[in-house]
């Protein structure tokens, strides 16, 4: 696998792991179904690209000017998608980011609290 594609996958996996640990503050954006997180010099946006039955997860990297400098798609042709599980990792990352940005877990905990113990 070329070096850059290895790094794409590493980035997705690290975001996935850190999001799972609740360490990445994903936020909602103006775009429908788009979530973002910023770091000091770059930011990452995650969005959905739906074409009929086909759903593609899109991760965009922006520089400090706000310009997109790289796009990683879960349906990228070539080695990194299916063979290395990028599709699955990006789908999970998207779902985690969405729940985190919308505060889904907090809402469910709150609802469970109101409903009382079983």
């Amino acid at each position, binding site marked *: 696998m070329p070096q850059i594609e290895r790094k794409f996958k590493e980035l997705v996996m690290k975001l996935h792991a850190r999001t799972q640990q609740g360490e990445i503050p994903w*936020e*909602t954006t*103006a775009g429908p179904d*788009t979530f*973002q997180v910023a770091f000091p*010099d770059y930011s990452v946006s995650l969005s959905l690209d739906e074409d009929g039955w086909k759903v593609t997860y899109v991760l965009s990297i922006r520089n400090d000017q*706000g310009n997109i400098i790289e796009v990683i798609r879960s349906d990228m042709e070539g080695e990194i998608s299916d063979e290395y599980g990028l599709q699955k990792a990006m789908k999970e990352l998207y779902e985690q980011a969405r729940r985190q940005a919308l505060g889904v877990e907090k809402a469910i905990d709150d609802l469970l609290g109101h409903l009382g113990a079983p």
Partner: protein
Amino acid sequence: MEEALKFIAKWRLGDIASIVSLVVVIIGFILTNIGVHRSRKAAEEARRAIARFDTISAVSAAIQALEEIKTLHRGKDWHILPHKYSEVRRSLVAIRAANPNFSSEHKTGLMNAVTQLANMENEMDRLLAVAETVDTDIAGLNAIISRQTDTLSRMLVEIKRTER
């Protein structure tokens, strides 16, 4: 005259005068250096104070511009909004460029606001390309803008507090 020269020679006043002159020159040199150093320090402090003032003004202006964007959302002035998003985004990029020593937290806050505004500009352009008017969640957009003004306001307080 001869008496005077003898007196000077006897007491080696010439040597003493040379030593005194040397001491005076050294003290003068040190005092000049201290003066130059103080002037440089004062100039540097003045430059930093001006830069800090510029940053405070720019961040305050950005907060004001973000508040105006919220009003434009409420008024549904969709066509002017992409330009406004871009304008504020560029001002935030300029603030960041003028302050390379900003903390990681400040840089992240600015990066977040820049990305949100870039996303808003793209989304508004996309919506306006397919329709004359936009049916969107105004409260949602303003909530995003409010988060950015909160971040910038906190940044402003911190900048004002430092170097006071």
